């Protein structure tokens, strides 16, 4: 049966149905496009990812030569210090005395703060850091006297003395000092409460007992490893 176009029922039905029809056809298209986009994004996200293999589970390279590795190991053995040596950990402020793989003594020490001091009038600058690397004990000194450098006066707001005799301080370094060169020493301290902290201008401070042990155990020429 054909519907009468003038019928109010059909007119009403038309006006009601038309918008519904429009929504019904565009909705799935939009959802489809959004879904496709999202799927593509997810695919890209997945494809841009990585596999992470435990390093120990990977095979050794085919050209890895165990004979050469063995030879390197023997050569490295020859490089290692024969006698007593010192290891200083500047991050944790620990010093150890070792012979071969054996640790003879462990001590709490103080190393450089890493702070920076400027002297604007002269343009000079100091960084108070303990130098990392391999050093040697160049000399051992009993009852060392500190010849205070310029920064020691600047830091305290004091004028830099013109006479050399005004720079000497016989009490600051303790009973012994081991000279590592370039002004860096292993010495005693007046500030025991700061042991275990980064508190110095680059030298390595120890308490009296540890300093005495280090002084008597470590010969001149021994290696000092600072890391």
């Amino acid at each position, binding site marked *: 049966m054909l519907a009468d176009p003038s019928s109010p029922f059909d007119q009403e039905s038309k006006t009601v149905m038309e918008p519904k029809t429009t929504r019904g056809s565009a909705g799935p298209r939009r959802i489809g496009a959004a879904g496709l986009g999202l799927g593509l994004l997810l695919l890209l996200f997945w494809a841009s990812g990585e596999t992470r293999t435990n390093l120990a589970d990977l095979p050794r390279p085919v050209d890895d030569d165990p004979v050469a590795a063995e030879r390197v190991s023997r050569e490295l053995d020859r*490089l290692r210090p024969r006698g007593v040596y010192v290891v200083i950990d500047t991050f944790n402020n620990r010093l150890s005395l070792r012979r071969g793989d054996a640790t003879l003594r462990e001590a709490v020490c103080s190393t450089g703060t890493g702070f920076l001091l400027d002297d604007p009038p002269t343009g000079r600058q100091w960084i108070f850091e303990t130098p990392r690397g391999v050093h040697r004990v160049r000399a051992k000194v009993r009852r060392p006297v500190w010849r205070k450098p310029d920064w020691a006066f600047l830091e305290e707001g004091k004028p830099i003395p013109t006479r050399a005799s005004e720079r000497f301080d016989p009490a600051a370094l303790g009973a012994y000092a081991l000279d590592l060169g370039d002004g860096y020493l292993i010495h005693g301290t007046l500030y025991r409460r700061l042991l275990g902290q980064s508190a110095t201008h680059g030298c390595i401070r120890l308490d009296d007992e540890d300093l005495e042990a280090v002084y008597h155990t470590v010969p001149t020429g021994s290696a000092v490893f600072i890391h």
Partner: protein
Amino acid sequence: MRCLVLVLLAWSGWTVAADDAAEPAGTELEIAGSSEIYLVLDVDRHRLDVQAQGVTLRSWPLGEARWAMPRLSRDQPSRPIGIYRVTRELPLPERVRLVPPAPGAPPPAADPRPKRAEWIAQIPTDYRVSLEPHLDVRVVGQPPDEVSLPNPSLGDRWANLRAGFSDAPAAPRLLVVLSPADARALYLLLRPGTGFIVR
């Protein structure tokens, strides 16, 4: 004459082969023979050692050591055994500046601990190190009982996609997890030129 040529050829071939075999060993010995501090990633022992002249100065346990490969890569990975060098400076937090007191003013407090602790806290615990030849290491500091591998960054994802859809070689990446304190201590050791040996 012909015999002499043959002997010379054989000798030169043998020398080249011997040099090839000796090269990596020589390089490690060069590093160890100098006065520098270097690092050894010992895969089998699951440790990262700080060494100098063949002496282990400190040894950090690894929370994780993973080799990251782009998902679409067709390469067959093997252990990156070799000798590398740090290429780029890792920026240090700004150093604490000491201000000399005015003449006659009381000297500043002698206790540097708070400022030093502040400075250490600014050292990152998640960072990247570029090594030569071509290796990126991402170091992540996490407490040993809370290790969770971080997601690749956007830059890594882009590089992974490029490697997957072209023949460009994938950027080899090593992901190392240490404790936060060890990650900071390592950061201070990684200066340009520092040797990094993977065994």
